[in-house]
C-alpha cells in the first residue's frame, strides 16, 4: 500500500462496491426493451451477448495473464494480483499481507544497492540483533502482564539492554543506508515516464499496478519479474514504523476508526475476516523478516499470481515478453494452503453501543454470501434499490421522514464470505434508535411487498449505463480484472450483468426474508461523546455576536440538565418578570433561554425521552 489511492480493505469500500455493480456489457434481450430509445444508428445494436474481449494465457510455471488491447492508448496499464490477503494470516502476524505489499517496493538484489554482497551481510547481522530485540520485548510483555509497566512498547519503559540493542541496530541501519540507492525501484519507473505506481491489500488479495508509456512496456516486464524473482526486503524495520503510522492515520486518528475495527471483529465469529487488513498494533510492532520471507515463499509463487495488461499491446506481444521475463520464475515449492475455517452461523443478535467524537449514527450488518454465490446478484439489486437519490433509504429516511442526514446500503460479496450493511446518520433530534427502526421498516418492505416494475426498470437502466461508464477508464478496467480475479474469477466481468438483469421481484422478497433476520444482524449505534456535543443555534440568536451566542448556548445546555420542574417554573417566571426591563438588543438572548426552559419543562411533564423508545 503506497500513496494516496490505497484504501484499507476488509470493510465495504466505495471502489469495490462500485466495481461490484459496475462492469459488464449488458445483455438485455430485445423482448425486454419495451420502448426503443431515440436511435443513434451508428452505435445502437442489440446483442444477446456482448463482452469485453479479454485475451488469456498461462505460463509453464502457472502464472496467468489477462490482456485487453486498446490501440488508442498512448500507454499500457499493467498490474498483478497475488491471491493472498489478511484472511491468510493468523494471530501474531496480522497485518503481514499488507506490510509485505510495502516491502515489494524495496527493490531486489540488484535494484536498490551499490554493494549487493555487503548489503546481504548487513541484513543478516540486522536479523541476529532483531532476534535479541524480540527476546527483550518478550520480557517486556511479561512485565506488562504482571502489571509492572503500562505499555510493553513504551520507549520510556525500555530496559538498559533493550536501549543498547536498539542503538546498535540503528548503526547497522545507517551503514546499510550508505550503500543503498534510495527508492531506486520508484526512481527507474519515474524517470521512464511511468506513473501512478501503487498497490492495495484487502482481506483476499494484494494488487499492484502502474501506467507505463506504450513504447516502454518491456520495462514493466523487467521490473515486475525482477521483484518477484529476487526481492530484497531492505529497510524492513523503518517500513514497519511506516505501517504503524499508517494505522495511526487511518484507524486511530479518525472519528470512528477504532470502533469500526472492533465492530468488524465482533461481526465475524470464526472466520479470519475478524481482523482488519492493517493488523493489530502489537503484531505490527513484532513482525519479523522470517515472517515476511515465509509469507513470500508460500503466497507469491507464480501459480498464485495473475497479471493483467490494458492498453496499447497485443496478446502476442504480451505472451512473448511474459515468457521471456516471468517465465524465469520457478514454480512454487509447496501448494498454497486453502482457508478451511467457515464462518459459524450467527445464533443471536450482536450489538455495540459506542460513544465517539462523531455524528450519532447506526449501522445494521447482515451475514450474506461470498462472491459469485447465486444470491449475490439479488443482493446487488437490493443494494441498488436502496441507494441513490431516488433510492428507498434516501427517499424514506432523508426526504420524507427527515430523520437522517444520510442513509445508504453497502453489499459486499468477498472471496470467502459476504455481508450487507445498512447505515444512517442522524438529523436534528432523531436518535440512532429511531434510525434503526426506520431502516428496519425498509427491510420489512423488501420482505413483504413486491418491487414495482417501474422501480426495477430504473435499477436495470442504471446497470446498463454504469457498465458503459466503467469501460471508459482503462485503469478502472484493469482494477476490475484484478479484483474479480482476486475474489475468484475475472469472468464475472462478462457474466454478471445477464445474471443481475434476470433477478425478479420474487427473488428480492425471498432473499430479503432469508438473510435479513433479527438473529443474523449486528447493530452498532454511535452517540456523540459527552462534552463534544454541537448545539444548534436557535434562529432567534442569529443576530447576536458570536461570543454572546456562546454564552447563551452554554446556559441553554445547562437548562437541558435540570430535571426539577419546580426549579424550571421558578426560572421562567423570573425571566418573564425581567423581560420588560432589559435592553432590546438582549431580548433575543432572553427569549432563547426562556424557550429552552419552557421546552425542558414540557419534556419533564410529558415524560418524553428523546425518541426511539426501545
Amino acid at each position, binding site marked *: 500500500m503506497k500513496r*494516496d489511492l490505497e484504501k484499507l480493505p476488509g470493510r465495504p469500500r466505495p471502489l469495490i462496491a462500485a466495481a461490484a455493480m459496475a462492469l459488464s456489457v449488458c445483455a438485455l434481450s430485445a423482448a425486454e*426493451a419495451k420502448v*426503443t430509445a*431515440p436511435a*443513434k444508428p451508428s*452505435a*445502437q*445494436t442489440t*446483442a444477446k451477448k456482448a463482452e469485453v474481449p479479454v485475451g488469456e494465457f498461462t505460463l509453464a510455471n502457472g502464472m496467468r495473464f489477462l490482456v485487453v488491447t486498446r*490501440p*488508442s*492508448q*498512448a500507454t499500457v496499464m499493467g498490474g498483478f494480483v497475488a491471491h493472498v490477503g489478511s484472511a491468510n494470516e493468523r494471530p501474531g502476524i496480522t497485518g503481514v499481507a499488507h506490510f509485505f505489499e510495502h516491502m515489494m517496493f524495496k527493490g531486489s538484489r540488484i535494484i536498490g544497492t551499490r554493494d549487493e554482497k555487503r548489503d546481504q551481510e548487513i541484513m543478516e547481522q540486522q536479523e541476529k540483533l532483531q532476534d535479541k530485540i524480540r527476546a527483550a520485548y518478550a520480557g517486556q510483555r511479561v512485565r506488562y502482564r504482571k502489571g509492572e509497566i503500562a505499555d510493553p512498547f513504551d520507549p520510556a519503559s525500555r530496559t538498559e539492554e533493550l536501549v543498547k540493542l536498539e542503538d546498535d541496530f540503528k548503526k547497522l541501519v545507517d551503514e546499510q543506508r550508505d550503500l543503498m540507492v534510495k*527508492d531506486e525501484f*520508484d526512481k527507474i519507473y*519515474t524517470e521512464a*515516464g511511468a*506513473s501512478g505506481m501503487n498497490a492495495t491489500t484487502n482481506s483476499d488479495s494484494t494488487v499492484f499496478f502502474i501506467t507505463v*508509456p*506504450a*513504447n*516502454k512496456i518491456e*520495462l514493466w516486464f*523487467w*521490473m515486475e519479474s525482477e521483484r518477484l524473482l529476487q526481492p530484497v526486503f531492505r529497510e524492513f524495520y*523503518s*517500513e514497519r*514504523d*511506516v505501517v*504503524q*503510522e499508517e494505522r495511526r*492515520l487511518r484507524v*486511530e*486518528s479518525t472519528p470512528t476508526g477504532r470502533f469500526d475495527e472492533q465492530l468488524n471483529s465482533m461481526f465475524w465469529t470464526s472466520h479470519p475476516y475478524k481482523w482488519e487488513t492493517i493488523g493489530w498494533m502489537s503484531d505490527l510492532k513484532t513482525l519479523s523478516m522470517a515472517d515476511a520471507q515465509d509469507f513470500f515463499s508460500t503466497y507469491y509463487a507464480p501459480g498464485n499470481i495473475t497479471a493483467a495488461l490494458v492498453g*496499447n*499491446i497485443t496478446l502476442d*506481444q504480451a505472451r512473448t*515478453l511474459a515468457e*521471456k*521475463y516471468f517465465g*524465469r520464475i520457478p514454480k512454487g515449492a509447496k501448494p498454497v494452503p486453502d482457508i478451511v475455517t467457515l464462518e459459524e452461523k450467527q445464533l443471536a443478535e450482536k450489538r455495540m453501543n459506542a460513544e465517539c467524537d462523531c*455524528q450519532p449514527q447506526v449501522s445494521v450488518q447482515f451475514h450474506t454470501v461470498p462472491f459469485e454465490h447465486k444470491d449475490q446478484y439479488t443482493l446487488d439489486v437490493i443494494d441498488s434499490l436502496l441507494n*441513490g437519490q431516488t433510492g428507498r433509504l434516501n427517499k424514506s429516511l432523508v426526504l420524507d421522514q*427527515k430523520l437522517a442526514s444520510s442513509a445508504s446500503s453497502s453489499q459486499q460479496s468477498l472471496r470467502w464470505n459476504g455481508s450487507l450493511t445498512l447505515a444512517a446518520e442522524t438529523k*436534528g433530534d432523531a436518535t440512532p434508535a429511531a434510525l434503526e427502526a426506520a431502516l428496519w421498516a425498509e427491510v420489512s418492505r423488501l420482505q413483504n411487498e413486491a418491487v414495482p*416494475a417501474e422501480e426495477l426498470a430504473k435499477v436495470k*437502466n442504471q446497470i*446498463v449505463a454504469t457498465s*458503459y*461508464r466503467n*469501460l*471508459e477508464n482503462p485503469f478502472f478496467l484493469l482494477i476490475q480484472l484484478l479484483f474479480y480475479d482476486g475474489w475468484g474469477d475475472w469472468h464475472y466481468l462478462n457474466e454478471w450483468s445477464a445474471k443481475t438483469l434476470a433477478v425478479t421481484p420474487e427473488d428480492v422478497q425471498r432473499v430479503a426474508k432469508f438473510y435479513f433476520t433479527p438473529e443474523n444482524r449486528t447493530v452498532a449505534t454511535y452517540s456523540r461523546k459527552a462534552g*463534544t456535543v*454541537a448545539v*444548534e*443555534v436557535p434562529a432567534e440568536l*442569529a*443576530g447576536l455576536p458570536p461570543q454572546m451566542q*456562546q454564552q447563551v*448556548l452554554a446556559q441553554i445546555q445547562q437548562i437541558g440538565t435540570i430535571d426539577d420542574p419546580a426549579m424550571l417554573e421558578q426560572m421562567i417566571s423570573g425571566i418573564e418578570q425581567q423581560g420588560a426591563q432589559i435592553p432590546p438588543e438582549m431580548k433575543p438572548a432572553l427569549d432563547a433561554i426562556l424557550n429552552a426552559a419552557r421546552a425542558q419543562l414540557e419534556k419533564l411533564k410529558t415524560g418524553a425521552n428523546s425518541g426511539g423508545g426501545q
Partner: protein
Amino acid sequence: MRLLQPFLVRFLLLAGASGGVFPAAVAGATAPGPVVARPEQLTYGAFNFVVPNGDSFRHVLPGGVVVYVVEDHALPLVKIQATLRTGAFREGDREAGLASLTAAMMRQGGTERLSPEEFDQKADFLAAGIGSSAGATSAIATLDVITPALGEGLDLYFDMLRHPRFDEARLAVEKSTLLEGMKQRNDDAGDIADREWDFLTRGEMHYASRRITAARLAEISRADLAAFHRRTWGPEHLVFAVSGDVDATAILGELQRRLAGWKSAEPASPWPPQGPQFVPQPGLFQIEKDIPQGKVTIGEPATQWTNYADPEPYALTVMNDILGGGGFTARLMKRVRSDEGLAYGAFSQFGIGTYWPGLFEIGFASKNPTVALATKIALEEIDKMRSGLVSEEELRVSKSSFIDTFPRTFESAAATARTFASDEVVGRPHSYWTDYRSRIGAVTAANVQAVAKKYLDPGKLTMLVVGKWSEIEAGDAGGRAKMNELFGGKVKHLPLRDPLTLAPISQ
C-alpha cells in the same frame, strides 16, 4: 416501463477513440535474447506524441458562448460540462454560503416545470448524472448521459440551469443536512486543520476561506437563492466542454436552441476576482486534539501565473517535485518516510495561483512524539533546496517524468475537452500545452536553486499542528528534536472553535 437499449461494445472498444490509433509501439522492443542485467540497458522504440490543437475543437455560438467539442464514438456516452463566471466571489460581505447553496439547490430543488421528486425520478430513470456546484471563482454544471438519453438529458440539464424552482421543502432538507455536517466540524483532525489553515493563510473573511455559521445558514431564504441565480448565472463567459458520442454540428445546434432567450446575468463584480489582502503571520500554531498523531501543515505564500512564457513557474514546478511533490522520488518522502519511518506520507506542493498567489505547503502526519523530528527534517530540506544545487540525476528524473507523463493530459476525449475549456476560462493560451515539454526541458539546476532562494523564505513559514500538545512538545524518546528548538521556541495555542458559531471556545 421503459428499458434502455444496450449496445454491442465489443467492436466499438476495438475501433479506437478519437485520438487515433497509435503504432504498436512495443514491436521493436521484443527482440529475442537474454534478459539484460539492468533496466537501463533496455532500448525502446520511438513514441511521437503530437499535442492536439485546441483551436480545432473550438466553436463559438452566436451570442458568444464558447464550446469545445471532442468526439469519441467508442462508447455510447456523452459528457457535458459548463463553466460559468459565478461563485463565492459574487457574494456580498454578509452573503457567505450563498453561491454554493444556490448551486446545490439548482440540482436538488426541482424546476419550474418539474417538482424535485419528478426531476430526480426522470434523471435516475435515464441513469443521467446531472450536477451543479460552485467554488470560489467559478461554478460548473455537468451532464453525463448515455447517447439514447441525450435529448431528454439536455432538457433536464437546461431546465436546471435556466429555470430552477428552489423548492422550499427541499431547501429545508438541504439546510438541515448542511447543519448536521457543521456539527461534525471538530470530529476529524484533518477537518480542523483544513479550516484553520485557510484562516491562517487567507484570513477568516475572504470568500475563498470563510465558513458559514449556523446562524447565517438559518437566514438564507428561497428568495435569496432565486435572486443570486438571476443575478449571477447567465450565458456571458459561458464555456462548454462536450465530449463523447456526439456529432459536433448536431450538438452545437442542440446547445444553441436551448440557450436561446437566456437573459444575461447582471454585470459581474470586477474581473479578475479579488485575492485576499490578508498577510499570514509566520510562526508555530497548535490546536489541541486527543489523537495519537499530529497533523502538520507548514507553508507560506507562493506566486501566480502572469506570463505563461516566463521560465520561472516551470523551474518552480521542478523544484517542488524534487523537494516533495514527486512522491517516493522526492527528498521529503525519502527522509521522513523511508529513512526514518516517521510518517506514512510527506508531501509538498507549490501553488501557482490563477487570480492571486497560491501557497507553498508541506504536509505530513506523525505520531505525536516525532512531530518535532519530522518537522526539523522538513525544514532542513527547505534549507538544502536554497543552499545547494540539485543533482543532475534528480533534475533528469524529474524533468523526464513531467515530459513522458505529459500525453496523459489528453488521454481521453473528456480530459481533452476540459483541458482546453479550462484554458478559455482562466485565459491561458492553448500554446501552453504545445510549449510545455520544451519549457520543462529547459530548466537547469541553477534555475531550481534560484527559485528556491527567491520563494522559499524560512522566515515567513507558518506551521499548524493539530494533535496532543503534551506529547508533541517534548519530542522523541531519542532526544533528536523538541518543539522548543523550532520557530524560535514560541508557540501560539489556538482555541478550538464552536462548530456552529465558529466562535473560539474558551478553555
